[in-house]
């Protein structure tokens, strides 16, 4: 047995050594069945939230954003908080699918598909907020540099324009990466489609994929290139999101630590969200032996590591404010900790820095209930982190005469709840119709799927010509 297989044997990523056909069976079967009452209950709940959010957005488009709590001086409030929160959620997907792929972390194979799907849904959810914040969402295309009869162009020196390019590129590339990964699985689904309608849809979507090696050769290279491109891309996206703040002169925003701090926070919250959803999904679809405790434990380790980075960033921010000797900067951070929004800061530190420390204990990392609670608290904490950054910096800046307080309205909360509805509705539809675990990648990482050839057998082989069948 060769070395790769030894390593795989020592740390099984799939429990119970199922056959390749069993993997297909277990991933694909839930899709052919009429879902049970739990799925329908969850779908009804999230669907209703989504509808409520969409109606409130429609109402906002009709009446104007005066329905929200945004005011002067807190011009950026819930919409931007939610936007940054959702964009951050997406980053775990790309990290798992691209960066861990480049590092040959093969344990990622079972969770990559799901995390990528969450990336796409999170970016879609995030994008609704700036569009609604424009006030006239039907003119959203004006942010693109489109030649127009007003002879106007966008300002390429504005971080908001960079953001637009970053988010739309991120969405496009993530979607392609996800879809490329899906094609072989869709081909497998095509061959086991329960009805003719399924068969036709899966056929069209799988491009007539057959699995010839001459296709796999380019396919694997494309996957590698996309992973290589996505890796700097994902870092750039939250960096540019942080530029929206950092390139301004508002105290508390104008800091060079913001890009790395934002990226770490994004990975942190994204992994927490993936954990939250995966814990439920693996239970609901009986995939505990495909998404094992080892996967969850690894993700918990990432949560712990990024929690430390985020905690470090909080300390550096406070230290820099004090060390700068700049009175307004000092005041801003004092106001963050002890001002009227002290509770948001306290909640943020509690959820993001203190709670994840339980993952130092192996017992917490490998038990479902503690990690589930931690993952939810981390999401709460990360939402409040964005709230703290946006609101406490804006509500008291240089001019005490223009200080104010921010209070969200019911419409704000309704749209926030609606964004969760949109996200979870998409997740539920996804697990219902598409393979939530990459069958191809899990199969490829099984011990029995490996080729045991001697090195001399593969050196200098004659090149075979292409078949056309």
């Amino acid at each position, binding site marked *: 047995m060769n070395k790769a297989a030894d390593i795989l044997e020592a740390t099984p990523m799939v429990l119970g050594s199922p*056959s*390749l056909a069993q993997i297909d069976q277990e991933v694909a079967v839930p899709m052919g069945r009429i879902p049970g009452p739990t799925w329908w209950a969850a779908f009804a709940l999230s669907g209703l939230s989504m509808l409520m959010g969409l109606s409130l957005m429609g109402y906002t488009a009709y009446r*104007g954003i005066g329905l929200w709590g945004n005011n002067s001086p807190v011009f950026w409030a819930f919409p931007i908080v939610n936007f940054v929160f959702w964009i951050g959620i997406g980053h775990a997907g790309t990290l798992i699918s691209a960066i861990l792929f480049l590092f040959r972390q093969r344990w990622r194979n079972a969770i990559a598909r799901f995390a990528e799907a969450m990336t796409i849904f999170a970016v879609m959810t995030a994008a609704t907020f700036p569009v609604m914040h424009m006030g*006239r969402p039907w003119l959203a295309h004006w942010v693109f540099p489109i030649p127009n009869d007003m002879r*106007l*162009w966008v*300002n*390429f*020196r504005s*971080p908001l*324009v*960079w953001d637009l*390019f*970053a988010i739309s*590129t991120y969405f*496009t*590339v993530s979607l*392609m990466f996800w879809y*490329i990964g899906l094609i*072989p699985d869709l081909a*497998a689904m*095509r*061959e*086991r489609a329960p009805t003719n309608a399924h068969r036709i849809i899966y*056929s069209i979507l799988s*491009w*007539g994929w*057959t*699995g*010839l*090696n*001459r296709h*796999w*050769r*380019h*396919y*694997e*290279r*494309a996957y590698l*290139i*996309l992973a290589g491109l*996505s890796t*700097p891309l994902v870092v*750039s996206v939250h960096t540019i999101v942080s*530029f929206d703040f950092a390139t301004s002169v508002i105290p508390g925003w104008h800091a060079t630590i913001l890009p790395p701090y934002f990226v770490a926070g994004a990975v942190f919250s994204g992994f927490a969200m993936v954990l939250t959803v995966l814990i439920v999904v693996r239970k609901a679809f009986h995939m505990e032996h495909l998404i094992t405790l080892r996967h969850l434990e690894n993700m918990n380790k990432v949560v712990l590591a990024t929690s430390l980075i985020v905690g470090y960033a909080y300390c550096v921010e406070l230290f820099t404010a004090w060390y700068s000797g700049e009175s307004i900067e000092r005041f801003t951070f004092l106001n963050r900790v002890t001002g009227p929004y002290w509770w948001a800061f306290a909640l943020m530190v509690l959820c993001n820095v203190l709670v994840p420390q339980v993952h130092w204990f192996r017992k917490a990392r490998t038990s479902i209930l503690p990690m589930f609670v931690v993952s939810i608290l981390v999401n709460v904490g990360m939402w409040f982190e964005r709230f703290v950054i946006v609101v406490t910096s804006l509500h008291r800046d240089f001019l005490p005469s223009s200080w104010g307080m921010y209070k969200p309205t019911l419409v704000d909360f309704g749209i926030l709840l609606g964004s969760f509805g949109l996200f979870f509705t998409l997740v539920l539809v996804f697990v219902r119709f598409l393979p939530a675990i990459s*069958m*191809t990648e899990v199969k490829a990482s099984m011990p029995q*799927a*490996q*080729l045991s*050839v001697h090195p001399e057998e*593969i*050196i200098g*082989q004659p*090149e*075979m*010509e292409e*078949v*056309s*069948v």
Partner: protein
Amino acid sequence: MSEKEPVGAVVLFKTPDDLVAGIRRAQDRGFTRLDSVSPYPIHKMDEVLGKGPSRLGYVAAIAGLAGTTLAKTAQWWVSAVDYPLNIGGNPLFSYPAFIPVTFELMVLFSSLATVIGMLVVFNRLPQYGSSLLKSKFIRDLTCDKYGLVLDAADPKFSPDTTRAIFDGLETLGFDLLYRERPSPFFSQRILSVPFLVLLAGVALLCSSATRLVFRYGGAVPPFNFMKAQEKLNPQHESNAFPDKTGMRPAVPGTVARGLLPYPYASDAEAAGRDLVNPAPVTTSSLVRGRDRYAIFCQPCHGREADARGTLTAAFPKPPTLHSSKARGWMDGRIYAVLTSGQNAMPSYASQINREDRWLIIHYLRALQRAHNAEERDLK
């Protein structure tokens, strides 16, 4: 043809190692056109088949360079040439500020080219008509079995005897592949007539829908750009005042600022007799008169006051102002027309103030004189 010729054959194996044994056997028998089929990419299979690495990387690199170049050029042209904006006194070509968009477009172009290149150019997908899809083994081949595909174009291939060369190996089956009739739905030909008709139909539908949306969609709130607002509109009802009218009557016993009584509203001839143009004839007053004329008069009366204005197609055509009648009128008489209107022409008193009305008359006199020059004007 009644009897179909196979385009190839597929041999089914249980494990990847069996598959390699099969490949070796076929190679030993002189086959050169063969390939493997597997439900996942088998590590090292490229080397077994003697294939080098894919050249897709070059496509990605070239497209990335193209994206970079396009982004930099476009940002330079927009920000420094076509629409120069001074942002904080920074140079118009702010190289560092253009890096984020450049990077994003590099990634976007590179990824798009990689995906499209892989699917369409290198793999020549979609292949909905592939004979493998009709093989009885295709379900196994996308699940947990491995196939060796032999092409009928290989000189060693023969539908009857090829099967026998795998005797003694661990095979699970042998199947000849036949090319299906091309599907009417998945025609590979883009330039077929039904497809082009469909394309034209879609184009027509989209453009008429767009036209309708732009024509009528803009009138519906909230898309009407705040036309309907709760503001004070003259001639409209308003809830802001007890008498429910938007227009406010003058306070009793007062006059509006600058108001002078104009007693000639019903007697234009009297205005011609009594009123004298108070404005001096200077270069600046003529320039001002020309501007006002261009704004208020030219649309109907034309640039030369010869009744060739651009609106005359839609509105009643005014008479030329070079008639002897118009030239014979006193300034005051023309002033009466501007102030009270005449025939189809409405009053301009609310739009042009008194002084400007007199300046327009000066300019009109200049036009009349220019058009009806006498000999002494040439001196």
